[in-house]
């Protein structure tokens, strides 16, 4: 009995805090998404409606009929495309990087992990801001292109989906490299040697031994990039233009200019549900493989 109480007392501050300042707010948000919009913004506590969810797909035309509106769907689609593209890109760059790191001498490996981890822990705002300096007209890339005579046109991809993609890739690359590296580093070197010994080429050893064993890291990295990528706010706000809006900015807008809290809450709730779905699918897959 005392052991039970001691454990409860130890867990109370952290779990209590998370329950009070995260779980409760999330429930509140779900609740607000079912309310009607208040006349002056805010919400009407007495009026329940599915309007917020209907608004996602339909709008009312002049004759007050519901017609399909794909604006929001397109923003979701773009978010998925950017998050997915970022995942693929970070995987293409990150996987070979992780392999190279994992097969370096141990002393150098520690240093490399440190080097990869530093950007991971430096301010995400600063890191995205740095890309403005590179990508804008009159920025570093523009200046270099013109100075070298390769181009006379002003170069600018700032405020395009491409810039957002670069920002996301830059922000999340360490999230991909580190878990893959960790799973590769755990691989018993002798397994790979055994593959070589049994006549496997480098490619065969990679495909038949290294890749399957690194798969948990790859899946973990993909989740770590895709999930925050979907809800990214800073990269699209700083680097993307009005035409490349992502879910995060759309949600923020409902609490800013649009003053449509129920719709904002509904959007946030849908985003959260999508993230949970992705995590759930990952868990399920992981469990099945573990068995």
């Amino acid at each position: 009995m005392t052991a039970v109480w001691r454990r409860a007392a130890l867990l109370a501050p952290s779990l209590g805090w998370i329950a009070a300042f995260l779980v409760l707010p999330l429930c509140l948000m779900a609740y607000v998404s079912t309310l009607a919009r208040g006349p002056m913004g805010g919400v009407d506590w007495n009026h329940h409606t599915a309007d917020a969810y209907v608004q996602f797909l339909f709008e009312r035309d002049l004759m007050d009929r519901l017609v399909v509106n794909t604006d929001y769907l397109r923003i979701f689609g773009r978010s998925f495309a950017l998050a997915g593209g970022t995942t693929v890109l970070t995987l293409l760059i990150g996987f070979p990087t992780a392999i190279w790191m994992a097969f370096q001498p141990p002393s150098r490996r520690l240093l490399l992990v440190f080097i990869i981890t530093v950007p991971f822990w430096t301010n995400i705002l600063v890191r995205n801001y740095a890309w403005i300096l590179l990508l804008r007209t009159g920025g570093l890339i523009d200046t270099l292109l013109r100075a070298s005579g390769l181009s006379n046109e002003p170069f600018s991809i700032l405020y395009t989906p491409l810039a957002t993609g670069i920002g996301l890739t830059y922000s999340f690359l360490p999230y991909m490299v580190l878990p893959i590296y960790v799973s590769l580093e755990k691989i018993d070197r002798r397994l790979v040697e055994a593959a070589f010994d049994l006549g496997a080429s480098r490619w065969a050893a990679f495909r038949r031994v290294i890749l399957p064993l690194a798969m948990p890291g790859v899946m973990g990295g993909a989740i770590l990039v895709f999930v925050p990528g979907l809800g990214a706010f800073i990269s699209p706000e700083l680097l993307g233009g009005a035409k490349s809006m992502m879910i995060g900015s759309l949600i923020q807008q409902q609490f800013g200019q649009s003053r449509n809290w129920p719709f904002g809450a509904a959007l946030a709730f849908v985003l959260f549900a999508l993230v949970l779905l992705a995590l759930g699918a990952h868990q399920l897959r992981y469990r099945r493989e573990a068995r």
Partner: protein
Amino acid sequence: MKSLWRFPFTRPAAIFTLVFLYVPIIVLVVLSFGAEDSIARWSGFSLRWYAEVWDNDTMLRTIRNSLTVAVFAMLFGTAAATMAALALARGTFRGKTIAALLLGLPLVVPEIVAGISVLLFFVLVGIRLGITSIILAHIVFVIPYAYLPIRARLDGMDPALVEAAADLYAPRWTAFYRIILPLIWPGIAAGATLAFIGSLGDVVVSYFVSGPGATTLPVYVFSMVRMGVTPVVNAVSTLLLAASIAVFSLSYLVSRSKG
């Protein structure tokens, strides 16, 4: 003979990664020390933008706010996380899985969702937005950061050590501060560092829960950047960068020297 462990294409990829990760940061730092406000016209080294930071009262105030928030979030977050790690490190009990899931929840909720739901909560419950509300929200998000290294440290500890202390007449509390605490100290230091850096670097959650007149440095810089690029931002960004790297490197060295 070529080393067995050298896989084709991996070296260029790794070099690309390192260049890609560091070039933007280096450009930022270099520009912050430039005299002019454009890259095209480099005319020498200058501390002029740093002087402007120093003269900007609003910015200094937000720096102070950020440090206050980070220190409080670190202290409360690390304390709560240490207790949770002690409770969850050993043994199985009903609700353990739920507790672990709940502790990981702040990592899973998209920042934007967390930000607006906490904002809704504060507004509807009637908590005034300001430094306090930022601290309240930050503690939630630094708990898992602090928890993971402490838990890892506890998991790496031979359970027989605590039993040996009990066997040698050390009551529970004595065993805790004579044996457990010294042994998990590097984990607590690492956890506190991550909590501190995490709080210092947060933009999204702070952006939503900060009130007028009381915001953190990253939120202030965020709004400046959205207005347009000024070299002052380069300087203050470099300062933020230096702070994160310094704290992170320090904890890295501490954790390595203690083994």
